[in-house]
């Protein structure tokens, strides 16, 4: 698909409508972090497992404890179960046993 950002017209429009750089960049960063944070809240098991695997030396004890905290919150408000349930249902639908 053509990357429409590359066209001279797109550059001209971007220059005319360009918001101030720093606040725009900050807003964009916050949006990206919000998406990633919501992803961790919805599916905390991945991050917990990843940190747990690498915590043999205890270096990741603090982030692991934090991730377990998110896991607990996610479980308490029911978000984790919804995600797990949907994954299981989709796996069953396509005939793959998640185990």
């Amino acid at each position, binding site marked *: *698909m*053509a990357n*429409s950002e590359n066209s001279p017209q797109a550059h001209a429009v971007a220059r005319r409508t360009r918001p101030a750089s720093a606040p725009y960049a900050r807003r*964009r960063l916050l*949006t*990206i972090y*919000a998406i990633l944070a*919501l992803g961790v809240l919805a599916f905390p098991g991945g991050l917990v497992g*990843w940190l747990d695997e690498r915590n043999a030396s205890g270096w990741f004890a603090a982030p692991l404890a934090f991730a377990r905290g998110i896991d607990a919150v996610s479980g308490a408000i029911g978000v984790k179960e919804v995600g797990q349930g949907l994954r299981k249902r989709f*796996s069953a639908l396509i005939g793959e046993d998640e185990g």
Partner: protein
Amino acid sequence: MLFPTIEFGLFFAFSLALVWGLNSHNALKKVVLLALSLAFYASWNWRFLLLLLASGAISYVVGLYVDAGKPRPFRGAVLALGVALDLGILAYFKYLDFFIAQFLNLAHQFGLNPSIGFVNVTLPVAISFLTFHAISYIIDVSRGRLAPSRSPVDILLYISFFPHLVAGPIVRAHEFLPQLASPRNAADFSFGENMLLILGGLFKKMVIANYLAVRFVDPVFTDPSQFSRFDLIVAVYAYAIQIYADFSAYTDIAIGVAALLGYRFPQNFNQPYRALGIGDFWRRWHMTLSMWLRDYLYIPLGGNRHGAFATARNLMLTMLLGGLWHGANWTFLIWGALHGAALIGDHAWRRSKAFARYGEGPIARVLDWTLTFHFVCFAWLFFRSPSLDSASQYLSGIWIDNGAANTAPWIVAPLIALGAVTQFIPPASRAVVGAWVDNRNPTAQAAFGFALFYVIIVMAPAASAPFIYFQF
């Protein structure tokens, strides 16, 4: 550290804040980006950092000497030496054992038993991409398309910039280095469009490519003798969709990640399975490799400037080397030769009187698409097969039905259909949706991005196949 992993998610989140935090200090920003890129590469094997540094050093020194603006003695020889050193590194790590094996096979046929051993060296990650970037820099400088950089940091960052380092796109030096001169404004890049690129890439890789690979394509190509004729035929088409979804996903994510960091990469795929003719296919598939081969190999060989025979020779040589670039295996050479032969035919057809008369009609276009698509799929059979024996076993399985039951899971059909849909989405749709996202407030943007991300995670399989182009 590959894109759809928790490692990369954390790495990217860390890099993003750091890079934009330093945006008003360009020199420091580049040093930090270089350090991040070297750390990214070292996550596979830190020893290969030396290779990256050596490649950067060769490019830096040779670039300064072969500057087109300054006539110097032996400029051509120094350029040739620089290219030879880059190719020598690639040849040593990637092809030496292959050529030793061919030499030993040949010697045995003549009853000789030379005492040559294999080097058995580990293939460094990304060496093919790294080499092409290094060569692009010194040739661009020697042709005057780019002034030689006085900054070793810029050269190393160009070669090692982590979004393109492992599997492209191949960003030519004159496209990237000028971007390092001054920091970019975040608003120069559409957030919505690049978020869609990344999420679309994740969907193509984690859902389409992964399911096709794990559930069907990998088992069939591992032992074709166990599968029915129907399964073998379907697996070829499934692989065509898998490799497109896999590779275009990687480069879409790379382009999106680079843009979110403030750098623009060229487009790498343009709905290649809609191509009318093999020439058109190569203008749509791995476009940055096609352009690299055209600019740095096909045209220097003479291109189409010296008559029909020389053009055919140059096309074949370019495609043979393009095939070999993918790996030291006869299957890649045959894949390259098939495409070379098809390009020669395509070239001749498009210059014929018959084409001028009938080539643009609707029937000719349908025939053109049908032939092109099925030819490309047939050639993928060689590309995917681990060896020539395996490819011939596969072909004989298609020719002679072994009576095995059909085992293709039903999920293969909708996945192939989904892959086909990606070929027909209007090219402007991502820009339109991206602009719509850009005009929403940050909360709505985050909600929209998260909703798409959520769907992908729900659908993604537990097991993931590695990126296909990671091995090249």
